[in-house]
């Protein structure tokens, strides 16, 4: 915590404005306005690319620019490496962030992610990039205080780069191939690292078969974000009851047993579970077992068709079937009794995808 505070202090309190660039800021502003006029922006200013900045981006990915990184069959679309580099520069990425962007783009193209569904749906998902392994701390990707919030360049620009690729390369633009009813602020950017320090269990990438020293990006299509608050629970059961209630919220789109859900454990909640000695599997099983509603509940809310029958009041339906569909990661600050539940966008065809991050070698 103290180190984090010192990091922020260094960033915000020790600003040095005595040696600004020699060029006129109006020149940059003209270019930014020019790029706005082309319709290439997500609404925020774009960093004007240069030959050098695009090449530097490609170099950290071990790419020349001519490579095709993947295809989206339903869109009849390809993703050229140079276009990803241009969008990453525009998003404000440093070159060293580019391997993370590349891994996320590979996730988009994975057949089991099934891009066209979460990208186009009226449900309007934000695509979360969860970074694991040593690259997170190395790049300064925020995993602690305000992990979902603003203020850290790596988080903000890596997530933004992915969205710009979606908009500019895959035409996932509002009103065109992005048909979200409301959308979500997470569509601007959504990238965070898992906090692997003082973790109750093994982090997500190790759970998925990678080594602790590997770095990975997990792409997860999330419909929304519910804060999970509990200040009194000091043992697992009451805390996990609350998570189960969040998971089976009737407003969640997919309550029919086959979707993924992401839980981000933070602060004191992670500590309660770490102290308890419960395994991650136990936690998953408890939540999945208790995430259920009566058929009458579903019918009252018209989430199931038909009249309510007397037996519906005592007939239960699970909203998840498989404990492994409950993704659990740790992030956020140590203090506070807040965690998060992020129901998956998904139908059963869109799965979260974990991709290794490789530096200096093409995907």
């Amino acid at each position, binding site marked *: 915590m103290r180190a984090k505070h010192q990091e922020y202090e260094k960033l915000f309190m020790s600003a040095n404005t005595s040696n600004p660039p020699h060029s006129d800021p109006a020149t940059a502003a003209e270019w930014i306005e*020019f790029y706005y006029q*082309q319709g*290439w922006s997500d609404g925020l200013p774009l960093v*004007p*690319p*240069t*030959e050098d900045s*695009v090449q530097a981006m490609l170099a950290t990915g071990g790419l020349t620019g001519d490579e095709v990184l993947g*295809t989206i*069959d*339903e869109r*009849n*679309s*390809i*993703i*050229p490496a140079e*276009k990803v580099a*241009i*969008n990453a*520069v*525009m998003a404000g990425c440093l070159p060293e962030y580019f391997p993370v962007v590349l891994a996320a783009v590979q996730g988009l193209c994975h057949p089991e992610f*099934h891009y*066209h*569904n979460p990208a*186009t*749906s009226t449900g309007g998902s934000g695509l979360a990039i969860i970074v694991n392994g040593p690259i997170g701390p190395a790049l300064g990707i925020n995993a602690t205080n305000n992990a979902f919030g603003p203020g850290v360049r790596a988080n903000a620009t890596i997530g933004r780069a992915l969205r*710009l690729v979606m908009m*500019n*390369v*895959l035409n996932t633009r509002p009103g065109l191939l992005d048909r979200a009813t409301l959308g979500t602020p997470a569509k601007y950017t959504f990238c965070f690292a898992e906090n692997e320090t003082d973790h109750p269990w093994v982090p997500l990438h190790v759970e998925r078969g990678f080594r602790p020293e590997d770095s990975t990006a997990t792409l997860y299509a999330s419909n929304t974000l519910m804060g999970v608050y509990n200040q009194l629970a000091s043992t697992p059961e009451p805390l996990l009851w609350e998570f189960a209630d969040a998971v089976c919220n009737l407003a969640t789109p997919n309550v029919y047993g086959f979707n993924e859900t992401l839980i981000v454990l933070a602060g004191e909640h992670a500590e309660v579970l770490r102290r308890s000695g419960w395994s991650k599997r136990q936690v998953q099983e408890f939540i999945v077992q208790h995430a259920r509603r009566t058929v009458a509940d579903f019918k009252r809310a018209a989430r199931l068709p038909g009249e309510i029958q007397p037996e519906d009041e005592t007939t239960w339906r699970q909203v998840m079937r498989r404990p492994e569909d409950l993704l659990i990661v740790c992030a956020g600050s140590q203090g506070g009794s807040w965690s998060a539940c992020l129901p998956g966008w998904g*139908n*059963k*065809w869109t799965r979260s995808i974990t991709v290794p991050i490789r530096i200096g070698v093409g995907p």
Partner: protein
Amino acid sequence: MSRRVFDPTVSSTTPIAFSYTSRPTSLHGLRVGLVENTKFNSEVILRKIAERLAARYQLTMTHLDHKKSSGHSVTPEAIALFQQKADFVLAGVGD
């Protein structure tokens, strides 16, 4: 000083070229296929439309394909079947 503009979009490079098939001049006596996309009421609505078209144009509904999900493409196998069994195909979302 370079003034190169870097276009971040992909406008024309697509892996598969395609063209639209010609439209029938009349619907009378044709065979219609349906593509249902798994959403609530998709099949119901498509079947209703096919029934009404059948009554009006003496159409025959010859094949109904169930997509894997609303976002999946129609499979090549289903397309081949439609080419054999149908003169035109109706697809719809339903929700």
